[in-house]
């Protein structure tokens, strides 16, 4: 078999009907952006799953590295006062 040039990989994001933000649904191969959106229509919206499609070439996505897991998220770990349950209020104040 001759070594062919593969179509690049695209990551596909779809916004559903109910006003939620675009969500990553998977990836696919396509020759360019327009082609990626057409393929995404066939591969990821066969049952009316979306009203808007984003296609981003996979190589253009910057991702945090798994080894950063600790240092990246540690600063948030001890800040429990960022959560509403940290503040105990009297019942008289009602729902707040």
């Amino acid at each position, binding site marked *: *078999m001759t*070594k*062919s*040039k*593969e*179509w690049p*990989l695209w990551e596909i994001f779809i916004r559903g009907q109910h006003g939620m933000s675009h969500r990553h*649904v*998977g*990836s*696919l*191969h396509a*020759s*360019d952006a327009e*082609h990626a959106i057409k393929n995404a229509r*066939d*591969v990821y919206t*066969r*049952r009316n799953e979306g009203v808007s499609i984003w296609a981003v070439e996979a190589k253009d996505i910057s*991702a945090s*590295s*798994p080894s950063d897991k600790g240092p990246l998220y540690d600063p948030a770990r001890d800040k429990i006062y960022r959560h509403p349950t940290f503040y105990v209020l009297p019942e008289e104040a009602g729902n707040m």
Partner: protein
Amino acid sequence: MYAQMVKSTGKGVQPLEEMGPQDRAFQERIDRGEKIEPKDWMPDAYRKNLIRQMGQHAHSEIVGQLPEGNWITRAPTLERKANLLAKVQDEAGHGLYIYCAAETLGISRDELFEQLHSGKMKYSSIFNYPTLTWADMGAVGWLVDGAAIMNQVPLQRTSFGPYARAMVRICKEESFHQRQGYHIMIQMAKEGTADQKRMAQDAFNRFWYPALMMFGPSDKDSVHSAQSMAWKIKMNTNDELRQKFVDETVPQAEYLGLTVPDEHLKFNDETGHYDFSEPDWDEFMDVISGNGPCNTDRLEARKKAWNDGAWVREGMMAHADKKAQRKLAAE
């Protein structure tokens, strides 16, 4: 099942205390139910095993289009034709989800196809049986997709994130496949003419044992299972799933008025399960190693589609390159 014979390292499962620190930390993550993601460290054997399993699974979805594609132009009504077309299109989609998930492990799509076409990677033995009559479309949807669902539902919890996510999507779509098959069977076996009933029974007779084989060899002969189960890339043993399939399918056959082609089939009051005859494992080994009734046809059809499509793939890429050049020149 869709991945019936995934060869592993052949070694047994290493106990935690004998593992090196990296392997041990990895196994403990899996034991805690954490998902492994593509960029995470993983043992080579885990990666290799998963590529083999997902490759087989994806290839099965793609090759699985062929026996049903055979009947699209000959469906008895326009509605049935539309249903079948939608189902076969779903199978293509399912193949694509799993290929993309497999590619996150570092194998390319071209390599995956190359290994299918060269016979290095397998696909499920079930697709090497011919679909001779329209009743086979009923039997395939009901039994083959039924068996597939049984395997894929637990795989939604598998340890590799992209594989688990692909399974969630697939399971959502798959139940229509089984229902449309059973619907065909109801029409033929329950409401049909004497000839249609005979065709339904004939299809059932031919697909029963091949469907049981989809779960892979008996546990006592399944040498690769233990490690896969420790890694949670296989969630149940072959025999567990096969039993579950029989237990669910027999009452469905009874409803249709069809006879299970097994004279030893009997409900066992003690175990609460059906006792049944094992499929012919020699036949299974024969089919999986390339000598089934349709192995040659299926692979030839795949290779022809790939080779005939080469000019389209190259043309699309050349066009995209040219467009990008033009845009660059205009700036």
